[in-house]
């Protein structure tokens, strides 16, 4: 099974970099052997500041895609800090104290794209339309707290990142089929 783990965010903006850092951590942890020790899956890793249209082609070549992104509220509905920021501090959802949350990404066939970036659901929809490919897509939303133009993660985000890395490594080690991650979806 081909699995892509894709980190989204800008590590130069503190916790916005959680997704990209998760990818780095997993790659580092597995550098001595197979990408994820204990599995026979074929893994790919990627990261970028934002998702964009060419990612539809990238995910079309995989069976499972795990997007990892920072979230203001544990990822209950806003998979990206950009989306969280869009909501504005006064409009943000009530904080969710979970360090991370995994949930499936459905295609957004009528998504109205508001910026140069494209939502994960938009990428999946584009992939379906352009390449007739239907990878199972998930979002691993990791809670962040600070979004300033600075580098180190906040203390809370560091803790959440560690937990998310451990979770994903363990989940991917377990035997399973295309529903590999479904049992963990909360």
């Amino acid at each position, binding site marked *: 099974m081909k699995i892509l783990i894709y980190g989204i965010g800008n590590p*130069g903006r503190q916790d*916005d970099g959680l997704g990209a850092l998760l990818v780095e951590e997993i790659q580092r942890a597995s550098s001595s052997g197979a990408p994820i020790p204990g599995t026979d899956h074929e893994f790919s890793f990627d990261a970028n500041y934002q998702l964009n*249209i060419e990612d539809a082609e990238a995910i079309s070549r995989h069976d499972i895609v795990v997007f990892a992104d920072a979230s203001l509220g544990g990822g209950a509905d806003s998979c990206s800090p950009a989306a969280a*920021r869009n909501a504005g501090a006064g409009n943000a959802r009530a904080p969710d104290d979970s360090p991370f949350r995994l949930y499936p990404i459905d295609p957004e066939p*009528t998504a*109205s794209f508001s910026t*140069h970036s494209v939502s994960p659901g938009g990428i999946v929809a*584009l992939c379906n339309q*352009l390449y007739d490919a239907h990878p199972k897509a998930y979002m691993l939303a990791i809670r962040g707290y600070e979004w300033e*133009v600075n580098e180190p993660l906040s203390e809370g985000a560091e803790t959440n990142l560690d937990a998310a890395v451990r979770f994903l490594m363990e989940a991917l080690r377990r035997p399973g089929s295309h529903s590999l991650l479904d049992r963990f979806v909360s």
Partner: protein
Amino acid sequence: MSTKVVIDPVTRVEGHGKVTIHLDDNGAVTQSRLHIVEFRGFERFVQGRPYWEVPVLVQRLCGICPVSHHLAGAKATDQIVGAGTGDGLSPTAEKMRRLMHYGQIFQSHALHFFHLSSPDLLFGIDGPIATRNVIGVALEHKDLAVQGVMMRKFGQEIIKVTAGKKIHGTGAIPGGINKNLSIEERDKFLDGKDLPNVDQMIDWSEGAIDFFKDYHKKNREMVDNFSAFPSNNLSLVRADGAMDLYHGLLRAVDSEGKKIFDDAPYQEYYNLIGEGVKSWSYMKFPFILSLGQENGWYRVGPLARLNTVDFIPTPQAQKRFEEFRAYANGKPSRICLLTHWARLIETLHAAEMMKELLNDPDLQGTELVRTGTRQGEGIGLIEAPRGTLFHHYHVDENDQITMCNLIVSTTNNNEPMNRAVNNVAVAQMTGQEEITEPMMNAVEVAIRAYDPCLSCATHAVGRMPLEVSLVDTNGTVIAEAKK
């Protein structure tokens, strides 16, 4: 009772913008403003950091055009390490940077056309909002959408092999670069095995121009009258007057093509360009000092560049440039929507430049860095996809940055974007009893032509989508829409 329309924020542009349109008691538009609601902070943030961090540090400004900031920052630090003012790098270093830059131009322009502009062109400004997006393009024009995806991917792959990685690339360093291009890396873009090759990129770029020209032919009256207004134009040009998006001298021309200044070294930009402020916006309003703030505002970006240069130094783009210039009777174009045509000609030029560079053996050279006498100041300019980008730094004897001034492309276009919004608002909303979604989209179309990146322009974390509201003279919002 007079009314105010607020569009907040603008969709399919970056950052957070808010458009306010005031209507009088008779429903006539009296004033329109594009507000930027975030606060600048990056110029302060970099103070105290060592100058050699600049090329990487500045990439946190923006997730859309980090390569442009990377290269403008690197050019400024070239001057600090004594590697000259754009002419002191080794051939390998300069050409690697150029390849990175043309890859950035190519992917950014392709993204704008296929993702942000083509929905308006294919489905109409007043087309159904549910399908007026890139998914709609994919559903009804699959070949076009696939081309857009692959053009964008090609440019991104060029960036990856020249900058080293997608996030916080390190390719450009003070005085040069940190890697050359291997034969294996080069052949990926030439042999067509893993990616459609660079010749295919050139062909698709030609096809995109034909697509726009066909659209223009069928919609000439609308395109030519949509928010058209005269302006001054500013860009870098090569010493012989050619288009050069990586390096050159500053040239400004007025709406008739008369040179306001020419052959100006950009290290003296502050003697030519002022930065005005207005009480209602955090974004500055740059202007040509000799003309004053009222008359000295200017355009930058694809339309401005095609208005300032004498020729384009690649054959296919030059042919297209001649068609473009002929349409404007040899004068600077003032037609807002012809920015799309200009952008696609630049896309073709970037593809031709990438082909030329990929076949240049200097990219496999081994002299990567040059340095000279240390300087206390560095200024780097580049023609970013959206227009001229200024980076200016002072450093102290401890190598720490003591001053930073940035004028980003979108800031340069602040005044013309405001005028574009006003023109469309007057044309679309005067006398109307109801503000419809197509009317609001028309305002956005005018803004999108400039491809603004407001997050970067305000040096702050951006908030993105767009709202439109109507407010009466008492400040009461009587209509509001969000996307």
